[in-house]
Each structure stands twice: as C-alpha cells, then as structure tokens.
C-alpha cells in the first residue's frame, strides 16, 4: 500500500468507485452546451463517424465521440478538465459527415467556452488575446517583412490596424465589453507570475 506513489491520495484515487452514478449528471451542462453550440447535441447515437473522421484521434487519446457522450450524459467535470479537449483542430470533418446532422466541433467549442469560464484554458490562447488587444492582430509586423512589403510595391504596414492604430480602440472596447482582457491578464499572471 505504501508503495503507491503519492500515497494516501493516489491510493484513494486508484481505488475510488468509477461507476457512473446519477449524481454525476448535470442536466444544466447539457443545456448549456446545446445553447452555446446551437446544435442538437443530445441526439448523438454514438455511431463513431466523427472519431472515424478525426485527424487527432489516431495520434492521441482524444475521442470526439466520447466528448459527445459526455455532453449527452451531462458529465461536466470530466469534460471540462480533460486536457484532450484542446486537441481538436476544428477541421469540421466530423460535422461534415455526422448522420444525425449534429456539429460535434461546435460542441467542443462550447465546452471550451464553458471551461474558460472556470479559468481552464491553455495559455497560448490568452497570449493571442493579449496580442490582439494591443495591436489588433495575432501576428505582429517586423522590419524584415516591412522591407519585403516595400520591395513588393505594398505599403510597409498593411492597411489594417497596423497602419491605422486608431481602430485598435474599437477592438479593445469589444474585448473589454466581455472582460476578456482583464481575465486573460489575470490568468496569465497567475500561471506565469
């Protein structure tokens, strides 16, 4: 017994009853997922077409079908804390082929939105938010590129927010309306100090 690494918590976890009990279901979760994804997530009949189409499935433990099952059964905690949630590339192959006309990709996006509400989010997403807040773009310009642009007969900065930074204010207002920047900064600080 003492040999279990991280004993006694790890032993407790290993021996815990893993069965599915009614209490594990949160019907609100199913409703929220359906509301945000705007798709009939509860109609999944687990045919497996989605996972069969998924590029991430053969090279990881990510199973879109399993996430759909969790959406149907309202297994909120499991879904939102599973790191595989972030392996979907949103290629939409599953949605393209689903025979029940559901959009599993949108279910994943809905779950990600709900995870974010719990501060569960990989830090690269937050960095993108910060970049857009400051420049309006996810990708900054640089001098090598400016020189190339000039050579190509283009303006050194593209006619986007890079060239017209006055438009950034509008973007910031949108992000602030949803408190996105504030939350992103807070979480980045918590993680990276």
């Amino acid at each position, binding site marked *: 017994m003492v040999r279990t690494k991280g004993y006694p918590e790890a032993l407790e976890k290993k021996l815990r009853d893993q069965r599915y009990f009614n209490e594990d279901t949160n019907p609100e979760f199913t409703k929220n997922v359906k509301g945000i994804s705007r798709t009939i997530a509860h109609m999944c*009949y*687990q*045919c*497996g*077409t*989605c*996972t*069969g*189409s*998924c590029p991430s*499935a*053969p090279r990881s433990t990510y*199973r879109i*079908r*399993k996430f759909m099952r969790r959406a149907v059964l309202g297994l909120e905690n499991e879904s939102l804390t599973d790191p595989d949630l972030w392996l979907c590339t949103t290629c939409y*192959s599953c949605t393209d*082929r*689903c*025979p*029940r*006309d559901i959009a599993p990709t949108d279910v994943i996006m809905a779950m990600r939105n709900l995870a974010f509400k719990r501060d569960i989010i990989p830090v690269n997403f937050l960095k993108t938010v910060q970049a857009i807040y400051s420049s309006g773009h996810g990708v900054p310009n640089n001098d090598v590129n400016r020189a190339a642009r000039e050579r190509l007969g283009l303006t050194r900065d593209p006619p986007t927010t890079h060239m017209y930074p006055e438009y950034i204010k509008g973007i910031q207002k949108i992000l602030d309306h949803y408190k996105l920047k504030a939350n992103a900064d807070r979480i980045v600080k918590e993680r990276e100090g």
Partner: protein
Amino acid sequence: MAEKKKSTTKKTESKKETKHEAPAKQEAAQKAAPSGVSTTKTQEKARIGVFICHCGTNIAGSMDINAVQDYAKTIPNVAYVDNYKYMCSMPGQAVINKAIKDNKLTGVVVAACSPRLHEPTFRTATKEGGLNQFRFEMANIREQNSWVHMHDQEGSTEKAKDAIRIAVAKAGLLQDLFPKAVPVEHAAMVVGAGVAGMQAALDLANAGIKTYLIESQPTIGGRMSQLDKTFPTLDCSQCILTPKMVDVGRAANIELMTYSEVDAVEGYIGNFDVTVRKKARGVLTPAEAEARGIVGGGCNGCGDCEPVCPVVKPNEFEVGMKPRKAIYISHPQVVPLIYTIDWNSCIKCGLCVTACGPEKKAIDLEAKDELVKVKVGTAILATGYDMFPVEKKTEWGYKKYENVISSLEFERLICASGPTSGHLVRPSDGETPKRVAFVLCAGSRDNTGNGKPYCSRFCCMYSLKHAHQIYEKIPGVQAYLFYMDIRSFGKMYEEFYYRIQDEGAKFIRGRVANILEDPVTKNLHVHTDDTLLNRPVDMEVDLVVLAAAVQPKEDTNRTRKLFGVSCSMDGWLLEAHPKLNPCGTTTAGVFLAGVCQGPKDIPDTVASAEGAASAASIPIHKGEVELEPYFATCIEERCAGCGMCINLCPYSALALVEKDGRQVMQVTEAKCKGCGTCGGFCPGGAIWMNHFATPQIVAQIDAFLLGGEQ
C-alpha cells in the same frame, strides 16, 4: 371516400329564410329540401340528445365536463343531456339507446373524439335506438380540443361549449338518409408482380376472383428474382420463387399483363375503370400472333433473334454488370417467356425479323402501345422498391472506386446465374477478394437531408447472409461488418446472427466515416471508430459492399396518384392506420402489399400480400358495397336547366335530362362524392347537398357566431 365536414359558406336564398328560432329553421329546411327527402321528424319540434364523453381523463382532464353539461342543457332544442366516462363502450352506447327511447329524441349529438374514429360506432347506436343513423352529429372535443389545449382548462371548456352548440344546430336539421348500395365488380387488380403482387394475385385467384396482374417490367418476379439466397433459411431465391411464377402464369383467374402500366383510373370502390397501357413490346405472344392470323406463330422464347442483334446494352437485371441486346429477355427463367425490344436502343435494322423466320413472324418493329380498359372492384398496389443512389454519399466512393459495390451488385455477383457464375471477384482486376468489408446503414438512418432518415430494415440480415456466402465460397476469406446495430428481429434471425459470428465474421461497431482507395492496388481503406474498443480504425480491404438504403420505385409516385393514395413523410405509401390497418389505405377499395408501404423482409412481404388480398376480396365476395349518402340532389322545382353545374363536376356525375317537358339536372349518385362544388355554385340554390345542406351549414355558422351563453 367520406367527405370531411367542411362548411361551404356560399350565400343562397335560403339564408334569408333562416332565423334564430329553431322551428322556423326547420320549416325552412323542409321548404328547401327536395321532395322525396324524408324530413318527417321536422313536423315535430327537434329534440336533441347531447352525450358528453370523458374519454377517461383524455377529455375530462382538460375541461370542466359539468360546466359543459350545464351549458348544453340551455341550448335550444336540447331535450336531454348526459355524460359518461367512455361513450364508445357498451354501457355508453346503451345510455344513448335508452335516452332516445325514453325522451323521444329526434337527433343525437355525441361530444367526444374524432368522427374518424367512432362515427360508425355512434351511428350504429343511434340506429339501434330507433332513429335513422344519419340523425347523428359528432362534436370533436378531443383531437380538436382537449388534446391540443391540455393546459387551458377555461379555454377548452368554452371551446367545447361552442362545439356542442354548433353540433346541436346541425342535428336539429338533419334528415333521414339511406346509404346507397352499389354492386361490386367481381374482379380485382394487382399492380406490381414481385413476390407481394404475385402472392396477392394468387390468393385472389384461388378465391375465385378474376385478377388482372399488371407488371411494368417485361417479366414478373421483381427483386426476389435478383437475389441469390434468402435469409435465414438460405433457400435459393429463384428456386422458391419459380413455382409461384409458374402458378401465376398458369392460373386461369389471373390475366397477366406484363410490360404494362396503369395509365388512368376512374370510378370508386366496387367500380374502378382502369386504363392499362400495354407498352409496345415489339414481339408478339402466340395469342397475339393468332389474332393476326399467323397460325402457330408468336414468340416461343427460342432466342434466335438475340445473337444477330448488333446493339449491346447493360442488362438492368444484372445491375449493368452483364450485357444484353436491344431485343432481350432479362434472364432464362422469365415469365412470360417472350422477348422484348428496348426501343431506346433498337436501330430497326430488321436482322431479328429475319432470324425469327416466316413461320413464327413474332417480331413487329412497328408495334405501338395499346390502351386497354378493365373494370375491377378493388385494387392492390405492390410496386416494390429501388436502391437509394448511394453515390450521393461521396464519402464512401461508390461509382468512383471500382472495388466499392452495392449490395444488389453483390447479390448478382454471388449468384450462380449472375455475370460471374457465382464467383465473387473484384471489379478492378477480377481477383478473388480475401478481405471484404460490409458497410451497414449506407444511406439509412441519415438525417443530413442527403440520405434516408428511416431504417431500411432488411440490410442487417442480408449483410449477415452475404458474410455467410463468402465464407461458404472463398476459403481463407475474412468478412468485416461495420455496423451501428445488428437488427436481427425476426424468426430465427438472432440465431442466424449467432451462426454468422461463429463462422468467423468480425463485427466492428462503428459507422464508416469514409473510404479511400490505394491508387496502385485499388484496395480500399475503410475508416471508422471501433466504438467498443475506443480506437479509430483504418482497415485495408480488397472489396467493400455497401448495404445501401432502399426507397420507393420512381414510378410509384405517378401510379399512387392515379389511385388516390397518399404517401407518408418518408416517401412510402400511406397505410390507413400503421398499427390496425397496414394493408389498407384511406381510399376505399385500394390496398397495399409489400415493400411499397415500407421496407420489409420476404416473410413480412408475403404476409402483407395475403392480408391485402383478404381485405380486397371482402367487398367482392359481399357483392355490394354501401356508399355513404352524401350525394348532391337536384331540387327540380328550382332547377332552371341552365346546365352550368354539369361541367363543374370533377367526377362527371351530373347530367341534364328531360322531365315533364323541361330540362333539369340529375345526379348519378354512385359517381357523386359529395364534394359540394355544384351545390356551392348553383345560382338558383337548386342543389341540395345531403347531410351538408346549406341550411344545415348556415345554422352551424349562425349558432357559432350568434349563439353563446343563453
């Protein structure tokens, strides 16, 4: 054929006569009614009995029955009101019976469910109480009230009061009517000669009824002829079908019309006038040759014409995998054994005529379609199915990748009389496949709009059968069945599933996401998720068989409209009631057999054919059928003989006749369907629609709009 109660709100002169006083209404009704229509009871004041049904909690749960009852007592002409938990039950009907006698009622109103359900029941109760059965009116306070206003007690109660008031107003003006009995032609028609059509025709013929069996293909047999073996018995399909085909060919009571289609249908139950188009075969049967004076001539199926024909086309029976000529028979066991010319490909070179020879002279290149009129009492539709065009589901590569075939193509390949003499080979290289994938639910259970939402029912079973067949024929082969469910529902079906799994077939629970082809080997990669193992799958196989969905035959849509049959949302023909009347339709005298009503395996197809034949034989054996007396009648005193109504009638039921030196309109009651077109139109108010007469309808409208809490 029963017309639903629709109010034709056409103003006629009789409206002026109707007042709110009930007796005045009745006098008006008497004045307006044509002589000869009995309104004896209108001499007396109308005495209506109102009976309110609780229908358990179906009605009572949504409205206040007592309030409705109290209100009913206040409606003019109401002499008696009662309520009961289940009016349609024996004690319920007894209540009506007793009330009529005790209270000398002149009419009955039952406020309950839809007349489509119990109108006959209560009409009988009315009759047994001593009144004419048409002195009955029903107020639907269930389907049209309590069931759709379940949470509005107040609203539904008020609505029920209105409905009863309206019904009472009409009931006060109802007349004695008598159903018209019409004779039934002692003949039946079956459209479609697959196993369903043949079975139905044989049953009808054996019951002594002359049956016209119409088949659009040159031969009978349908889909069953194309199958190799049948599950779960593994009988050879054509072997068990041929005796039936031969019986059909020989039966004296069956007039077989192959290569024919229904062109037009007129009439009604007991008296259908059907025009059959006998398509030009280009080849004479011995009977036809005899009729032309060619003694001992006509096609004897020798086949001399076939080798000389220069035109080669794909044989549809073999799903395009074997050639045929422009003059052809689909396969060696066709019934009748007569060749047919495909005019779309015939170049009229005449070589076949020469080959046929001067003695048989069986070929007529100038043949034309022939229209034949037959009269039948009842008809059965058994038009069968087609495969869904599964190339529409591009993810599986059908018609793009050579080694992806459909289940029907598989049947022909594995069949000993098929294009490869029963050897399963890969279309790309003719090699024997060692790994075969069966894709179930290909196009079925599909809500994308590109596919069928229903289950095609028999594909699970035939895929199991296919797996068995390759284990039988190809040593060392491996079958993979990719499924969502295995629906082995019938007798000995689950045992068959057990057997196939025991024979070595591998079952992978996952719907096939997509299939990719290796451009060099032409092998297929089947991609899915093994949902039970929770692992994505990339299975390389030599051949893929798609268990494609089935759909109604294309021409069925045209044929069903001729007979007045509806189709359901999924496209299959609509039965009268899915549970209690799966072989009938809402059109009296027309029945359904086989897959045209919905996907079925062979046992269920044969059973439905026998059911349809039984139902179709009843009116014929009875010899007559009662038509509901909703006809139009001419009030001759008012008829100006203008004749404008004659052409309006969609059923050609009206005619002008000489009577007492002047022209008046006359109705052929058997043809009249009571649609009301003429009655609504007549500018002189000279047409009386039985049971839906203008005074009656106007009384209902007045009662609704001008009545109310008394």
